[in-house]
């Protein structure tokens, strides 16, 4: 298939595999010259992976498939290669050096210089011209820390322009912006479009996509579902996009289960949390959550909705500042000032990122399992080595952790087995409430089923379980009741019988005040 003048980019049959997970499977996407092309999908659908393949973050050879840019096949070994042909990606986490000036950042790695000596006149002059193009009214020698996130985003775009960008990729550019900054950014994309710059924008904000995109490609489970022409005969609604994002078969992926719901165990009331560094930012906004014994409750939300922040702030204030609200366990108010307070109150929390926050990867299975309740196998501060082994051995057998022995380092286990070690560790504390944050992330399908079964058994044993997940089918298949969060607020509470992916997605995308545009 030859590309014509109207097509700037073609990606064909892109497949990218990570150990144990197929992130992209035969993805195809065509971008027309001069358009704004949106990519939509749930968390984990493969959006970021796709643009990383495109920009050379994942080098040629680490994926299968072809990329044609302006009709030429691309074999990028690094970001430098893709930038050389005019493809520039701006990541969600901005790549700016905070204590350097705007001008220095724009030309970082691409300095205006003669024989290695910086030409400050050229730097500042050219920077000023680029800032004018993106409509940023700041001096080039202002430091990055002294301007807000919205303006930093514009600096990134100016930096892209300095590299003679033809195709600009923005990964969730408005996620951290307020409404005014978002509106300005989207207007700028339109303006650049007039200058012939094509953009690909990844966004969760469907109203933005409906307003700005010329076409929208929808990804689901690492596959292309469809590309919608936004200017077609039938106007494209947000519901139309949601349908594409979530439609999928749920049968047989979840073990059947009927919950026997008992008395309320955990109640969180009027819970408000502020960001630990930017104290003016409200991360969790007057949230109310309850979980009963034997009940599995879901917490749905898109990235940045505040789910993990809610869980960790309740779990012994391990996140956030200026926390207010009440936590009740078995109807009695508790003040959980530290993680050990939370553990003694009967709470357990498994993190979304096992490797960074959940496990000591250079330590063995048994020491990881006992690490949250070492007092249970020790007397007067001395660990009973035999007792430890006997206790941990039980968990290995009953959770069927597959390892040669309990001495194996957890860093050497598969994702599923690592997750079982984490679950063993928290079951060993004998909790009443389990908060499971993304319990099946990065785990293969077979191990996922085992984890689901385990969660069901825990509920049957009378535990109150709160599951945080980005996979809506998982929540629908597992939970008795589902809360949705958006921008720090609980925006909905739906019983399983009433819940569909469409209703959840609608609640999850509720904006704080009206539309962004």
């Amino acid at each position, binding site marked *: 298939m030859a590309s014509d003048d109207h097509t700037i980019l073609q990606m064909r049959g892109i497949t990218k595999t990570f150990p144990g997970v197929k992130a992209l499977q035969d993805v195809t996407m065509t971008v027309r010259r001069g358009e704004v092309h949106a990519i939509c999908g749930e968390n984990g659908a493969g959006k970021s992976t796709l643009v990383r393949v495109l920009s050379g973050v994942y080098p040629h050879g680490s994926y299968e498939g072809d990329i044609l840019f302006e009709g030429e096949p691309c074999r990028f070994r690094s970001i430098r290669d893709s930038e050389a042909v005019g493809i520039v990606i701006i990541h969600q986490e901005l790549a700016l050096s905070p204590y350097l000036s705007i001008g220095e950042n724009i030309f970082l790695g691409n300095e205006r210089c003669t024989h290695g000596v910086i030409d400050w006149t050229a730097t500042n002059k050219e920077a000023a011209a680029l800032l004018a193009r993106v409509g940023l009214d700041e001096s080039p020698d202002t430091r990055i820390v002294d301007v807000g996130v919205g303006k930093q985003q514009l600096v990134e775009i100016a930096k892209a322009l300095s590299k003679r960008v033809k195709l600009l990729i923005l990964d969730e550019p408005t996620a951290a912006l307020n409404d005014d900054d978002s509106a300005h950014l989207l207007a700028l994309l339109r303006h650049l479009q007039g200058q012939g710059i094509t953009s690909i924008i990844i966004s969760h904000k469907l109203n933005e996509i409906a307003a700005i995109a010329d076409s929208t490609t929808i990804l689901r489970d690492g596959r292309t579902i469809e590309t919608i022409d936004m200017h077609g005969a039938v106007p494209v609604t947000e519901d139309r996009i949601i349908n594409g994002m979530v439609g999928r078969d749920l049968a047989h992926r979840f073990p059947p289960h009927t919950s026997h719901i008992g008395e309320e165990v955990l109640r969180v009331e009027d819970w408000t949390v502020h960001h630990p560094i930017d104290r003016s930012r409200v991360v969790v906004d007057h949230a109310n959550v309850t979980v009963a014994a034997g009940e599995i409750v879901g917490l749905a939300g898109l990235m940045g909705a505040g789910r993990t922040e809610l869980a960790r702030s309740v*779990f*012994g204030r*391990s996140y956030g500042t200026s926390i207010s609200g009440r936590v009740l366990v078995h109807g009695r108010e508790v003040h959980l000032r*530290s*993680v*050990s307070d*939370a*553990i003694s109150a009967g709470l357990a*929390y498994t*993190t979304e990122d096992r490797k*960074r*926050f*959940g*496990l*000591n*990867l*250079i*330590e063995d299975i048994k*020491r990881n399992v006992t*690490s*949250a309740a*070492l*007092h249970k196998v*020790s007397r007067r*501060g*001395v*660990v009973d*080595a*035999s007792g430890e*082994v*006997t206790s941990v*051995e*039980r*968990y*290995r*057998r*009953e*959770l*069927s*952790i*597959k*390892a*040669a*022995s*309990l*001495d194996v380092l957890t860093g050497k286990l598969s994702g599923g087995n690592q997750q079982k070690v984490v679950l063993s*560790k928290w*079951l060993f504390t*004998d909790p009443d409430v389990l908060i499971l944050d993304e319990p099946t992330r990065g785990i293969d399908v077979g191990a996922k089923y085992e984890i689901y*079964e*385990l969660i069901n*058994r*825990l509920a*049957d*044993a*009378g*535990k109150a379980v709160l599951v945080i997940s980005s996979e809506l089918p998982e929540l629908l298949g597992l939970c008795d009741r589902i809360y949705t969060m958006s921008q720090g607020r609980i925006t909905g509470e739906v019983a399983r019988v009433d819940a569909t992916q469409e209703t959840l997605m609608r609640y999850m995308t509720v904006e704080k005040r009206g539309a962004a545009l």
Partner: protein
Amino acid sequence: MNALSTLPKGSQPSDVEEGGLGEYLGRNLRQYGMMAALLVIVALFQVTTDGRLLVPNNVASLIQQNAYVLILAIGMVMVIVAGHIDLSVGSVVAFLGGLCALMISNHHVPWLLAVILTIVLGAVVGCWQGFWIAYVGIPAFIVTLGGMLIFRGLAIVLVGTTVSGLPDGFNAISNNSLPSWLGFVGGLDGVTLVIGLVAIGGLVLSNVRARRDLVRNELKTEPFVAFVGRLVLVGLLIAVVSYLLAKSTGGMPIVLVVVGALVVIYTFIMGRTVFGRHIYAMGGNLHAAELSGVKTKRVNFMIFVNMGLLAGVAAVVTTSRAGAAVAAAGTNFELDAIAAAFIGGTAVTGGIGKISGAIIGALIMGVLNMGLSIMNVDTAWQMTIKGLVLLAAVAFDILNKRRAGTQ
């Protein structure tokens, strides 16, 4: 009732790895490598010094001269495993040594009481540094760099240049040996022989018991040959050292008893107690330790209190060895202790490290000191050689890890 009782019985774990001798040695290359390196270095000096290195009296003074490294390395391993560093121990030794000598000579405090007070004051110094590190959150590098200057300055203020005239009882700690209560057996000191035998017995007994526990719990054990080989090797080492010491003029050096006791106590603390476990957990993954309810501030504080306490012991040993407190005492002690810990296999990034490793590291440093001195090698070259040995040991470690990682 625990929730687990309702869980289904899972499948049996995959077959227990048997692991041959070669594979076992490969995996434990680091530990055995360092032991072998120590033996090679000893053998090398034995040749180059015409056998003078292992003359009984030299073995005794090797231990007496290097006791401070052995003691400080114990505390330093704990500090480094937790992910910190302590640059102040040399200055703290000088400061505490000065206090100890002044208590005895100017204030007529009985020397035994002064020794105890010095160790307590060491813990107080540790509280000071631990407070800034654990509760204020200043990196240990900065706090102990400050401490290095603060305590060196205070030591000079206190001591001037020298405080001497310390009682014989005090000086005996690092210079004399245990009295020969048991007489001599064929020219060998009885007390030394008994201590040697007790040490070997304790070693064998504790290892056999540990192995029996492992077998009973169906855990992976080292291959039987390696187990016996290791015991024979270490036992032989103790036997040879005991024999040489028993033949030396005094017999069992008093400091060796002190060091031996500390090694046993701290090996137990790091291997068997909740405190030790928390140190490894924090060094391996601080976030995970915090989210597991480990009181990380308290543990950090206690690590530095302990380091101060051991610096107190080292101060007593050093002052006793010199027979006087000197303002310049303890210079570079922190570097010796840090080097010993790293040579002994402690990970730069924290989370990994053993007391036994640091002891071997400290002995390597000590033997190098002694051997090079006997050979009349200039101190400038001694420093250079020790620096290269440190570099080689850590490079070996990193390359070995990389090789294991790519397999």
